[in-house]
């Protein structure tokens, strides 16, 4: 009996060692980037849309290879990303809520804000289209109709850039968003789209996340093309005078890269099924 215990303990130990050792080997491989800057880790707080689309998976490795920096991505909503920046927990933020970005810079939390790229928001809905809004291009009017019809609408409800935009459109529409049909999910964009698809309801999303998930869902774009649906992304370095510990050099290098020729080219060439997900702001 005792031997069996010893044997099983030994098996576990070996198993753990094997996995841990394997992991260690991989990490070394992943870290082997050229020319390490003095402070190589850059912490980037960004929105779920840049991560869920897969853009950062092509953009950041190019930056890391070019500069030797290593970017740690913390993908949260715009509201939380800005809060991380205000607290000094990250070095740079990449978000999409222009009014809040300006406030972030005005209050002295951030410096060197740059336009990076844009796409647009779209309203997704089911084929059955119970609110009868398909094909319109007036977002506020469409929201009013959704409220009147009492069709399910899933809101991010997480203080993100998309949520900020959604609230602004509700305000313009003047419709009351109270009732069982209005569901505040408090989740990231991907989850909210999946939920909406499940409920066969409506939701507001950035086009990038929609295109990235299009193959797995049955929802269609029902409203697009309203100027209010413009969705610009900006990058802002956290103010080193306010938070002296931040990796300001790393943040500036990343801003320079994503707004430079190489980064902008990667953004332009990043497509899904032939459709671009984001449009660079600096180059055409």
């Amino acid at each position, binding site marked *: 009996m005792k031997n069996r215990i010893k044997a099983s303990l030994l098996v576990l130990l070996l198993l*753990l060692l094997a996995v841990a050792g394997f*992991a260690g080997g991989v990490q070394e491989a992943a870290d082997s980037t050229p020319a390490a800057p003095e402070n190589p880790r850059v912490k980037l707080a960004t929105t779920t849309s840049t991560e869920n689309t897969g853009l950062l998976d092509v953009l950041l490795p190019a930056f890391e290879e070019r500069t030797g920096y290593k970017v740690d991505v*913390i993908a949260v909503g715009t509201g939380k990303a800005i809060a991380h920046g205000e607290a000094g927990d990250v070095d740079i933020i990449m978000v999409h809520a222009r009014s809040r970005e300006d406030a972030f810079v005005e209050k002295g939390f951030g410096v060197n804000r740059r336009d990076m790229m844009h796409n647009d928001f779209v309203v997704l809905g089911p084929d059955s289209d119970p609110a009868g809004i398909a094909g319109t291009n007036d977002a506020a009017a469409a929201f009013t109709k959704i409220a009147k019809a009492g069709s399910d609408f899933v809101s991010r409800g997480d203080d993100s850039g998309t949520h900020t935009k959604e609230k602004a459109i509700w305000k313009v529409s003047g419709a009351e968003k109270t009732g069982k049909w209005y569901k505040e999910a408090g989740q990231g964009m991907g989850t909210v789209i999946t939920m909406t698809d499940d409920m066969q309801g409506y939701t507001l999303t950035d086009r990038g996340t929609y295109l990235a998930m299009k193959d797995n869902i049955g929802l269609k774009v029902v409203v697009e093309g309203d100027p209010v649906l413009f969705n610009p992304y900006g990058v802002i370095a956290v103010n080193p005078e306010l938070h002296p510990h931040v990796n300001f050099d790393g943040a500036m290098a990343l801003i320079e890269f994503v707004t430079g020729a190489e980064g902008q080219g990667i953004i332009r060439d990043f497509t899904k099924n032939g459709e671009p997900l984001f449009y660079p702001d600096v180059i055409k």
Partner: protein
Amino acid sequence: MDSVFGYALKLLLTFDKETYFIAGLSLRFALTSTIFSALLSLPVGVLLGLNRFRGRRFCITVLNTLMALPTVVVGLFIYALVSRSGPLGYLGLLFNPSAVIIGQSILSFPIIASMVNTSVERLDGNLRETLVTLGASKFRIYLTILSEARFSIMTALLAGFGRVIGEVGVSMMLGGNIRWWTRTITTTISLETSKGQFGLALALGIILLIIAFTVNFITHWTVKHER
């Protein structure tokens, strides 16, 4: 769903680099935090189990309450402490493996301490007196008791390990789910599910099940032996 299962199996059987890295990271975090936690929770459990003093019952009640603490609450407390705007912010721990390990150590502390206390309590009451009569030093007494209770202690450690290997609150809030750095089994499952991609999530879920099974298997044998 067939293709998702197929993809998950493919990741596992072809030893996909990222899948196994994530699993290895989870194991390393859980092991490290269990060891750190044991350094404190073992002595606390033994002292509580051996000695009778005023407030002992209260200490045990506190431990039992902490055992049920949701992981996100622990995450929140540590977050407030180690954020740059918090009192320990100057250490720069947030969004690093060390923050996750601290949080997980705190999570497993009450479980280990409480279980060790119970098992030491149950040891033969004469054992200590006999040792004292034989003229054993205090240190010697503790060593003997640790050795007598070794199987229950093993069970306690496994329970602590089990609590942290499958938790998501602390890892997500304090680690930030950073790829190749703090992205563990549970945070990956959460992320991949939110993206609507279930293959990698499922593969990691299977690994987590295997780990849980192994831990339970060992616990089972340990308990059986003790009897």
